[in-house]
C-alpha cells in the first residue's frame, strides 16, 4: 500500500481544486507561514475519518469548509479524496487502487465514499485500521506529545498489529 494522490476542494484554505501526486520515497512540502501546509496534513487525517474537530484546530464541521476571504465568497462544501495503491492487497478490499472520499456541508452533514460508492464512516475506519492511525499523521508541535502521556496511554502505540 502507499499514498498515490490527494485531492482537495473547499477544504480550509484550498478553495480551488488542488491535486497532489505522491511518489514513493520522501516528499517535502515547503512554503511561508500561513500558506496552508498544515491544512494538507489535516486533510489527510480528515479523509481517514477523523472525528475530533479539536485535533483539526476547529470546533465543528463548518470550520473545515473554505470560509471565504475579502476577495472570495465562502464555499458550501469541503471535499478531500485520498487515493491509495492496493496492488499488494494489504487493504481489505478487492481493488488495486482505493480512493477514500469525504465530503462535508455547512449543514454539518458528512458523507463518505470508497471508489465513488457511498459508504458509512464505519466502513472507512475498517479499511484504514491497518494503516496505524496512531502515527500516520504527526501534527505540528505534537511530535513530543508521546513523552507527555502517562504510561498506560502509550499502550495504543504497541497494539497495532503488523
Amino acid at each position, binding site marked *: 500500500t502507499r499514498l498515490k494522490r490527494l485531492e482537495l476542494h473547499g477544504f480550509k484554505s484550498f478553495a480551488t481544486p488542488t491535486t497532489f501526486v505522491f511518489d514513493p520515497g520522501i516528499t517535502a512540502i515547503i512554503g511561508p507561514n500561513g500558506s496552508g501546509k498544515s491544512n494538507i496534513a489535516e486533510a489527510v487525517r480528515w479523509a481517514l475519518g477523523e472525528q475530533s474537530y479539536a485535533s483539526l484546530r476547529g470546533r465543528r464541521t463548518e470550520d473545515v469548509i473554505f470560509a471565504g476571504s475579502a476577495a472570495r465568497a465562502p464555499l458550501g462544501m469541503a471535499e478531500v479524496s485520498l487515493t491509495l495503491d492496493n496492488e499488494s492487497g494489504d487493504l481489505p478490499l478487492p481493488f488495486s487502487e482505493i480512493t477514500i472520499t469525504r465530503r462535508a456541508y455547512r449543514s454539518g452533514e458528512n458523507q463518505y465514499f470508497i471508489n465513488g460508492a457511498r459508504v458509512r464512516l464505519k466502513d472507512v475506519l475498517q479499511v484504514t485500521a491497518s494503516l496505524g492511525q496512531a502515527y500516520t499523521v504527526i501534527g505540528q508541535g505534537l511530535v513530543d506529545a508521546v513523552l507527555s502521556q502517562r504510561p498506560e496511554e*502509550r499502550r495504543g502505540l504497541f497494539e497495532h498489529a503488523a
Partner: protein
Amino acid sequence: MAEEFNRTFGEVAAAFEATFTTLFGGGKAKLLQVQDDDGATGVDILAQPPGKRLQSLALLSGGERALTAVALLFAILKVNPSPFCILDEVDAALDEANVVRVRDELKALADRTQFVVVTHNRATIEGADTLYGITMGDDGVSRVLSLRLPAEAPA
C-alpha cells in the same frame, strides 16, 4: 492480546534503543513495561543523552524531547511499517546536526514507508525526492506553487 503486545513491545524496545543511539550519536534509552495501581500495563520511556545521567523526561531540552520522540516513532515504523507517514515540522526544535541525523534515518526508512514531511529546514528539504511549494494568494486561497520532479535540480 497480551501475547501480541509483548512480542511487539520487545521488538520496538530493541529498535528504540538502537535508533536513539543513532540519532543522538551516543547515549542510551529504554522502554519499560510498568503496572499501574489497577494492574493495567503501561510503557515508561527512559532517555539518557550522551554524557548525561539517566533523568526524568521533564529535564530534557526542547530538542532532546523532539529527538527522543522521533526515535520512538522510527522504532515503531521499523517494527510495524505503516504504508505512509505525514510529519508536520517534527524538526522545528532541532539543531543542524540533529536535523541531518533525522533526515538520514528518514531516508533509510523510506523504502518501506512513504513520507510526506512539512518543513522549513534546508537539510530536510535536501533529503527529499520530490518537493511541493505552497503559497497563499492575496485572496486567502492556498495554491501549489511548483513541483520539483526528482530529476530536476532545485532552482
